[in-house]
């Protein structure tokens, strides 16, 4: 049983399972959001934890004061995902029947600043403070030894909320994973109100009216962010090697890692010649691929699948959205390439320290 879970936790499998699960949840949302099913899943998770925590290693990993908020977060994310989908499903049914969404019926009028807004916020503040205090009393801040530049902790991990970013470093060059992509994430999030002018779903839950937007969100947040946090926290051990949840963290575990560049695949494997010596010619296929991906794909899509979308949004909004979207999708693409072909970089210009 433990071996089975260990095997599932292999990063490619883990990622695949997570992706499939998220899409399945969206696809068969009516089934999954039924309270009985959701409760069954919840209890299933609880039973798993109760069973697994008897393993000393699993317990040590889960109960580390660092990791406890992440466990909380897992359950919270699960709960709120369920809640939103549950209500969306309900609303979709009402809309299908031609009724107004629940939220519109529940409270058609405006609410008062006092007491409805300020008082409730104040209550939240009080409860939040109390919870933080009690938490701090029960779980001591995990202090570590004085920082030593010659002896970094192994594994060296970012704060838990940045672990998704750190995981990206495995697949991208630091300038991309550490600078460009986080920048794009922030800018992309800021751009959403301007890109997404669709008024549907404002103030009420729905899925049917916004399938693309919500699917993108679930994929980007749950799969690319939360799952990476889980992966980094619980499954990466010393030397950033992967360990199953029930596998001892042995310092000496060695993972076979080989780095292959796209230029090697293109020139040596496909064309059967040695790589050109000049970097431009050598990396030309890679550059073409990247430029093609970012420049040509949006156009192709605009002419085919996304015709309706272009018409609705207009070209500037469409292009902005699509480039952001493609960059987001580049992440799983690169991960898959890495796992399947050991591909390190598509463009690898060491001469300019430019790697993509």
């Amino acid at each position, binding site marked *: 049983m433990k071996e089975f879970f260990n095997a599932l936790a292999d990063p490619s499998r883990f990622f695949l399972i997570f992706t499939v699960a998220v899409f399945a949840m969206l696809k068969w949302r009516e089934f999954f959001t039924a309270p009985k099913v959701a409760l069954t899943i919840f209890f299933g998770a609880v039973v798993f934890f109760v069973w697994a925590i008897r393993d*000393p*290693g699993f317990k*040590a*990993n889960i109960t580390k004061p660092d990791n406890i908020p992440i466990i909380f977060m897992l359950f919270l994310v699960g709960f709120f995902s369920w809640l939103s989908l549950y209500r969306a499903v309900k609303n979709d049914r009402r809309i299908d029947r031609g009724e107004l969404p629940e939220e519109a019926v529940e*409270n058609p*009028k*405006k*609410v*008062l600043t006092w*007491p*409805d807004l300020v*008082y*409730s916020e*104040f*209550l939240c503040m*009080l*409860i939040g*403070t*109390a919870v933080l*205090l*009690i938490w*701090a*009393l029960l779980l001591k801040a995990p*202090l*570590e*030894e*004085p*920082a*030593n*530049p*010659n*002896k970094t902790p*192994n594994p060296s991990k970012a704060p838990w909320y940045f672990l998704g970013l750190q995981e990206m470093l495995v697949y991208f060059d630091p300038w991309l994973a550490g600078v460009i992509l986080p920048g794009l994430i922030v800018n992309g999030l800021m751009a959403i109100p301007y890109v997404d002018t669709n008024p549907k779903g404002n103030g009420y839950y729905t899925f049917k009216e916004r399938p693309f937007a919500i699917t993108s969100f679930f994929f980007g947040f749950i799969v690319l962010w939360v799952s990476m946090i889980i992966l980094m926290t619980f499954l990466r*051990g010393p030397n950033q090697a992967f360990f199953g949840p029930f596998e*001892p*963290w*042995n*310092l000496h575990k060695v993972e076979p890692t080989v780095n292959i560049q796209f230029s090697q695949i293109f020139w040596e494997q496909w064309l059967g010649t040695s790589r050109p010596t000049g970097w431009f010619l050598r990396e030309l296929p890679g550059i073409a691929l990247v430029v093609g991906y970012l420049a040509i794909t949006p156009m192709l899509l605009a002419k085919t699948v996304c015709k309706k979308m272009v018409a609705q949004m207009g070209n500037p909004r469409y292009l902005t959205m699509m480039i952001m979207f493609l960059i987001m999708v580049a992440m799983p693409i690169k991960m898959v390439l890495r796992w399947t072909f050991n591909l390190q970089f598509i463009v690898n210009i060491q001469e300019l320290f430019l790697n993509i």
Partner: protein
Amino acid sequence: MAEERIKDAGATFFDVKAMNRWFLVSVAVLTVAYVASVVQDHDREFKGYQGRFFEMERELAVRQGRAAFDAAGGEKVIGDGVDTAGELRDEIERLRRMRDGDERRRPELATALHDAQFRFDVKNAEMKMAKARFEAERFIYEELAHHLGEHALEAPETEEGKAAYEKYLDLKRTYEQLDEENKQAESERDAAQQALAALDALDGDVAAKLVALERDVARLEKRADSFDAERGFTKFRNSIFFNFMAPTLTPRKIVVNEILDDLNFLSVPKVDMCISCHMASDRFKDYPAGNAHVTFGDEKNPLLNDDDSGAFRSHSKPELFCTSLSPHNQERFGCSGCHGGGNQRVGFAKTFHTPSDAHEREVWEEELHWHPVHEWEYPMLGSRFLEASCYKCHQDEVHIPGAEKWNRGRDIVSKLGCFGCHKMEPFDGVRRTGPPLGHVTSKFADLDFMLKWVDEPASFRPSTPMPAFFHRENRSMEPGRDAAEITALVTYLYNLSSPQQLKSYPGSGDAAKGKVLFGEFGGVGCMGCHGIDDFPTDKLGELRHGPELSGIGSKVTPDWLYTWILDPKSLWPATNMPDLRLTEQEAADLVAYLMTRRNVAFEQKSFAKPADDAPFEQILLEKLTERMTAARAAEEIAAMSGLEKRRKAGEYLLNHYGCFGCHEVPGYEDAKPIGAELNGWGSKHADRLDFGMVEFEWKDPEVAKFNRESWLEQKLKNTRFYDRGKDKKPFEKLKMPQFSQLTEGMSDADRDAVMTFVLSLVKDNTAPSIKRQLTADEQAVERGALLVREKNCIGCHLLYGEGGEIRNFQLGDEGKAYYPPLLDGQGARTQPAWLTSFLHDPVFGKGDGAKAHLRPWMKARMPTFGFTPAELNDVVAYFAHEKVWHTSTERELWDTLATKFRKDFPGYEEAQLRKADHTKVKLFHDLVARNYERQGGGFTYESEYPYGARPQPLVGDDLDKARNLFQKLQCVLCHMPGGVVPTGKSPADMAPDLSLARERLSPNWVRHWLEVPEVYQPGTRMPPFWKIEGGVRPSVDPDINDPVREMDLLRDYLFSDSFAADYQEVAKKARGE
């Protein structure tokens, strides 16, 4: 919109009442959480310790007050009540009452005095008036009598005269009467005065007592109060919420500015908070010493019970640590500088207490909630390795006084030559341990010897420091590999070896004589360093200074041995083997004897060399393919002859195993040692150590199990252990050889000592100011101390209880006669100039071919070591600059301090000290010397040459007296010139030739020696002529009848010009010539 809002005014989305309830609940929860946080902050581990400590302190204060009161002669018997202060107050009351009772008598006495004074004054005035009148009348009468021509004043003849005389007499009588009465009044007044003064005196006494008692009471009350947790104010101060002001239960700290913590980005002073719980650490007079390993229930503090933790114990070495008088006082040195562990924090587990063993760990886990914490790379050193910390500051000392384990570790490391491969600071520049390998072909009788030797050194000589490289567990995979490697190595060494010019052994030796020379009563001295199976002792088979010589006949050629014995330095210039000045015949006898000592089992052992070249080719292939293709390597190998293959493989292997670390190998003189540098190893992070496949405990490696100590212990027990379960190429495998002395199953003490030494090599984090800085003199002393060990003076001589190994062979009473002299206080005994010349050449050539020896009857000879002038200076400085009582110039001061020290710190009693380890003796001397110097005491070597009172030239009567004394005491019977044994005396009775005394001995020492020889040399046969008996120092010569004078005379006589001639005369007479 507006209408809608108006319509809905008053209605809210949320239920306000419910929100109010939620508000109530959340405020309640928040308040509880806040209170809980304050409570948790208030509940600290150290408060329990401090509370209990103060409880004991209070009780102690009370008891001590009572004891002090009793000692001060308190008249009232005090019961066993706790309230000493109260009882003292009763005593005060009693004294006051006594004083008041006296006071009541005062008015009466004062009146009496007043009256008496009045009476006296009146009488005195009357008397003075009468006296004046009488004197005036006397003049008148005398003048009249003269005028009248009277013959006698008492019997006037004229009438006029008679009348005048009557008047005069009348006045005289009145005066005399009044004078008498005046005297009476005066004495009465004096008596009254005395009565009052007596009252005053009594009063003053009582008053002084009262003042003292009142002060005592105040002090006791204050002290007891300050510890009194039951007092309302104390309770308030320590109560929750209010203890931020001035609590009595509070963390306490020592800031150690001179020992730093390396926080990687900066070094910060240590802030030790240990004393927050260990509050009794420096209170060795009140609290029993020790730690958790010592059982409780000592007498010192009867309040301490079994439930109290080790925190209330005082330091077990108060003379050295913690106390204000010790060299390492707590205020300056703190705790964690030596003990390690976490500073700037309190709490048992949090401060990284480290259990010494599994049992202690269990107890701690159960009773003290101990758990491994790994936030700090320098947890406390278990008590096993505590001495490792001494080296931090005592870096220039060969032996650190008191650090017995570390010293032992240093000695073992030095003997085993660990520094050959592992660079370590204390051994920088020390010569290689093993013999040179440049001429092995001339040395060995059998060329196979070396093969068998390298194969398994212990099979030839179990005590050898040569470690075993082969037949180790990580080599078992390749049968025949060991044989191939050994063959290759030895072939290469033989190839490097060049022949050496040897004297040829004449063959005329007599083995029986050789045996006597070698070992009878310790022999000529060989046994001081070497053991042999013919003369077994407990130490046979242990690592000694020189190799054990059992079986030597199977090893070397007679020619080599003959040359070596006659002149060791001709074969190995750096050897420590001294020259015993043997004649050629003696050398031949010894060779004859030693050649009979064969190790037959070893000789019969055969060594199977590989039959073909294949294993050598394999070795070469492995090495060559590191830098070329297998095909190219095979070509190169094919081009070599069989011998070349062996040599080349041997060369690779020699570099691989680093033989040149311990042995001089031609061409490898400057080769770098192959092992990991051990400087700073004691600070090495545990996760930089390869624990191999030793099963890791899940994700949370237990610090106590996976620390550097445990790694090192396992490594020494089995140097190849961490290769277990690993697949490696032969040249990648662990190659550290196994030292049989440290192997698993051998003495734990030795291994612990070596570990302590290695752990002591830490990254330096101490300020120069706190390190032991040696003066130029002290540095010379340390260099000398090293030489004394390297040259093994202590193989023959006993030095403060250390060494004297040769005595193991000088058995029985007869053997005692041949004991080499003690070296205790050698520097105080002899003059440095003489000692220098003696060490340079122990035989005093008299120019006429005859040789004079100091102790000619001895069998063991003082060897000629061939010291360089610098070395001579160092050795002499070592002896001369010792800070021991022998060299103190003020014996009385020294003795007083030593007595006080012994009283303060039991455990240094004379008898105990004699039996103790020599380092404890040294420690005792060092500590007393420290106090001695502080009190202004001086040492002999600091005074002017010839170090002590310069003997006066004897003249006239004194010379005769001294001469007579010398004859009376029959000194010459033992101190025979030339060491000739007189008839009826045995060599055991002999004593040194006194004709050397003048240039040899220190006059100061001679004087002390005559006084108490036994104290200077325990077991000496010198009779204590002037020993104090029954508090009286006897005189031996009735002509002088003054013991001090006698001793002075005798001393001066020895140093006088006429002594030399007299001495020969007396000796002749004594011999009956």
